[in-house]
C-alpha cells in the first residue's frame, strides 16, 4: 500500500516537475524575445556569452541580483529539470525505507549522494581547475 503511495508521489513529481520546468523555460524565451534579448545576435556572440562559464556562486548572484530576468527564468527551468530525477531517486530511497528494505535504502542513498556530489563538489571543482 505504502509502495503504491510513493509511486503515486513519484508520478506527480514527474508530471508537475516537467510542467513547471517547461513553464519557466517558455516564460524566459517569450520574455527574451519580447525584450529583443538574444533575438538577432549572431550565434558567435551567444557562444562567447556561454564561454563566460559562470560558476554556481556567480550564477546564483546573476539570477538574484542582476535584472536579466529572461536568462534567470530559463536557468530556473533547467535547474528544475536537473532536480526532477534527483527527487525521483530521493523518493525511491523513501520507497525502500517504507518497504523496510534496509540494503536498498542504503544503496539508493549512495546513488543520491553520488549525484549531489557531482552537482555540489565535482562541478565547482572542475570550474575551479579551469580558471
Amino acid at each position, binding site marked *: 500500500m505504502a509502495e503504491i503511495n510513493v509511486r503515486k508521489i513519484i508520478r506527480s513529481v514527474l508530471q508537475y516537475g516537467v510542467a513547471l520546468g517547461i513553464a519557466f523555460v517558455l516564460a524566459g524565451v517569450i520574455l527574451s524575445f519580447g525584450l529583443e534579448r538574444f533575438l538577432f545576435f549572431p*550565434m558567435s556572440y*551567444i*557562444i562567447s556569452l556561454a564561454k563566460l562559464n559562470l560558476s554556481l556562486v556567480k550564477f546564483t548572484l546573476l539570477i538574484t541580483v542582476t535584472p536579466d530576468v529572461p536568462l534567470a527564468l530559463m536557468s530556473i527551468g*533547467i535547474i528544475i529539470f536537473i532536480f526532477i530525477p534527483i527527487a*525521483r531517486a530521493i523518493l525511491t530511497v523513501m520507497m525502500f525505507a517504507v518497504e523496510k528494505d534496509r540494503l*536498498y535504502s542504503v544503496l539508493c542513498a549512495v546513488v543520491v549522494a553520488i549525484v549531489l556530489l*557531482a552537482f555540489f563538489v565535482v*562541478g565547482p571543482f572542475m570550474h575551479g581547475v579551469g580558471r
Partner: protein
Amino acid sequence: MLFLSFLLYFLLMLLIAFGAGCLGALVGIGGGIIISPVVTLFGVPPVYAIGASLIGVIATSCGAGIASFNRGPPANYRIGTLLLIAITTGAILGTFTTITLSRMRIDWILYLCFGLVLLFCAFDLIRGGVANDSISTVPVTGFAEKLKLSSRYMDPVQRKEIEYHPRRVGEGMTAMFGAGIISGMLGVGGGVFNSLAMNSVMKVPFKVSAATSNFMLGVTAATSAGILFSSGFIFPPIIAPVILGILPGSIIGRRLLNRVQTPVAKIVLILVLLAVGVEMLLKGGVVTWLR
C-alpha cells in the same frame, strides 16, 4: 554557421529537437543521441552541446516515465539502484573527460566518439536491436540471490505472470560503468547500451529493462548535467529550443506509435544517424587520419 542569427538557430533547433523526439519515441531509442552532434553543427563547442542534449534526455525520460506509470510493467527499482551506482560513477568520469578534453582543445576526439556512437546506433537499428528477448527463469543462487533482484510482472500479450531472475550482476555493473562513461562524455542517454546490458547480459525481460532504463537515464543525465551546470558549461539560450522541441516531439511520437508505420520512422532515423555520424567523423578529422 557562426554568423547565423540566434533566432534562426532557435527555430531550426526547435524543429530538429521535435523531429528527434518524435522519431526517437517511434523507434524506441530516445532522441538525445542526435541532439548534441547536431548542436555542434551550429558552431557550438561540444561541451556546451552535450549539456543541451543531457537536459533533453532528462525531459524525454520524465515524459516516458509518466507514460510507463500509466501502462506497461513497472521498473525494477532494485536493479535500477544497483546499476545506478556503476553508471553514475561512470558518468562523472565521462563528464570529467569531456571537460578536460575541451579545455585541452582536443575536441576532435569527441567528434570521433560522436561519429562512432552514432554509427553503432545506426547499425544496431539495422540489425534489429534486441531481437530476442532473453529472460532467465531459473532461480539464481549466491551473490545474485542475496541481492533479491528476482521479480515478476504481468504480461498483457501472453496474459500470464512472468517471473524472472537476473544473473551476472558483476558483468552487468561493469557494462553499465562503460555506458555511464559514454553517456557522460557525449551527452547521450545511453538507453541502447542500458537495454543491451540488462537484457543480453543480466537476462532481465526487455519490457522491464526498458522501464528500469528510463529511471536510470534521468538520474545518469542529471549527474552529468549537474557537473556541467555547476562548472559553467550550461548556457540556457542554447538549451531552451531543445527542451521545448524534444518533449512535445516525444509525446506525439508515443501517441503516433500505433498509427504510423514504424519501419518508415526507423529508416528515416537510420539515415539521419548515418549522415550525422559521417559528418562527425569528418569533423573529427578521420580523413586526415586515414591519409
